[in-house]
């Protein structure tokens, strides 16, 4: 295994309409490590995963995965590259016309010529690892949100990919499932030498498994480092986020005109205020 980073993001700019989401983001995701991308809601963490996966195209800048510029690949080459990735979606995104077993078997059936008996064994192994072997005959409509995410995780690792992108993996999990998931992500990473990118704002869980962290806010990387260095970082934006403080430089409110003006309109009282 080389020491070269698995993902390199260089001078990334991306907007939706007039809203600038990224303004010159630079990141290096090391190979074989768990890298967390954190930041307040609405900062574009999921968008960043979609840019890495080639589902969105940046305005400028480039994203290299194992040396390949994702946005310069042909459609066919991009799909070939994606066979080396797994992605856990926030919603699970299970195929509603397939049951749990077939959802997990899907990548194996389309990308390998394994016999049915081997597919069955592999699917049961993956389902066992997320604790849902007994739910193999259920349909996605019969699963809770947390269960759907665990099935989606089993599907994401079905082909033992080199890179897994986790989009908010801990949201909506009960404490037991959360603990299992945290352990699972860590174990998968260590056992298979995967490169994992975890997008989350669950600080405690993420800090416990991440080898390296990027904190993004206001379209830029505001800090990066190991969990220990970020925990003691003196930057008020970093400190506010890591320690969950309500007051600080990162605003809780979406930009708006003054509250009193919104409530009172242009009445004389408002103008005095």
């Amino acid at each position, binding site marked *: 295994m080389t020491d070269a980073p698995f993902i390199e993001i260089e001078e990334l700019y991306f907007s939706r309409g007039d809203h600038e989401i990224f303004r010159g983001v630079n990141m290096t995701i090391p190979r074989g490590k768990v890298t967390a991308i954190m930041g307040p809601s609405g900062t574009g963490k999921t968008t960043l995963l979609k840019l890495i*996966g080639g589902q969105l195209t940046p305005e400028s800048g480039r994203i290299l995965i194992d040396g390949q510029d994702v946005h310069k690949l042909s459609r066919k080459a991009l799909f070939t590259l*994606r*066979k080396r*990735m*797994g992605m856990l979606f926030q919603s699970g*995104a299970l195929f509603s016309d397939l049951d749990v077993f077939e959802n997990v078997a899907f990548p194996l059936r389309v990308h390998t010529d394994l016999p049915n008996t081997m597919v069955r064994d592999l699917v049961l192994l993956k389902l066992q690892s997320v604790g849902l072997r007994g739910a193999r005959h259920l349909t996605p409509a019969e699963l809770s949100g947390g269960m759907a995410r665990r099935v989606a995780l089993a*599907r994401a690792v079905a082909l033992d990919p080199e890179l897994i992108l986790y989009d908010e993996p801990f949201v909506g999990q009960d404490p037991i499932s959360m603990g299992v998931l945290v352990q699972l992500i860590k174990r998968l990473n260590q056992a298979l030498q995967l490169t994992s990118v975890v997008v989350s704002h669950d600080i405690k869980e993420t800090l416990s498994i991440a080898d390296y962290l990027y904190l993004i806010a206001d379209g830029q990387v505001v800090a990066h480092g190991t969990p220990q260095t970020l925990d003691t970082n003196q930057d008020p934006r970093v400190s506010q986020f890591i320690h969950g403080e309500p007051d600080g430089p990162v605003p809780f409110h979406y930009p708006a005109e003054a509250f009193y003006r919104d409530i009172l309109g242009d009445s004389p009282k408002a103008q005095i205020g």
Partner: protein
Amino acid sequence: MQSKFSNSTARITRLGRRGCDLMEALGRAGVFLFQSAVGVPSREGWRLWLHQMHFVGVLSLAIVLVSGLFIGMVLALQGYTILVDFGAEQALGQMVALSLLRELAPVVAALLFAGRAGSALTAEIGLMKATEQLTSMEMIGVDPLRRVVAPRLWAGFVSLPILTVGFSVVGIWGGYLVGVEWLGVFEGSYWSNMQASVTFVDDIGNGMIKSAVFALVVTWIAVFQGYDLVPTSEGISRATTRTVVYSSLAVLGLDFVLTAIMFGGL
């Protein structure tokens, strides 16, 4: 004066933007059609196509055949009341067959197909998009255009002409029931006049060409609207409506153009 000028400029700008949006959407739809339809299907692709043939074709049979029966019956009834005044009720079979084969079967079957199968295709693909199933398929390394869109596109293209044949056959039989069995037109003249006047290339062939064109257009509109929609509940509702409206207008407009080319001597 200044404000009048700026209003006109704004109007022209809006019109220009709409024109550009329309051209862009047409371009996207063209690329979409090419990427989905061109390519050799795998064994799995054939299986998915067969499954879709059942969904869009077999499940549309009932509505198409029942409609064909009633339209044939109405044609015979209306035709008889006109023809009998001229003592020409023997030509009833010819009138029913030509009306169905040249016009009514391709057009009405396509309109019914747009309402029954087209809207369902749009809603299904749209919901897959809204629930990120298409995105997750992409991330697994499977192209949704090949796996989801292509089988539906080809199933629609193949099944509508077959449904049109069914519509015509049942319609002619419906005309027979009303004209011969009920109103007493001589059975021999009903069939022999039909046999003498209907030609395979001009009538059946042109009708099938129309049906194939409608099949491509209706299915293309349906799958593109599903794939290109805004992934919200309102977006799905609007796209489904657009599928039925655009398909119906396209079928009726193209029918005139094709009829003018085939039978109008253009």
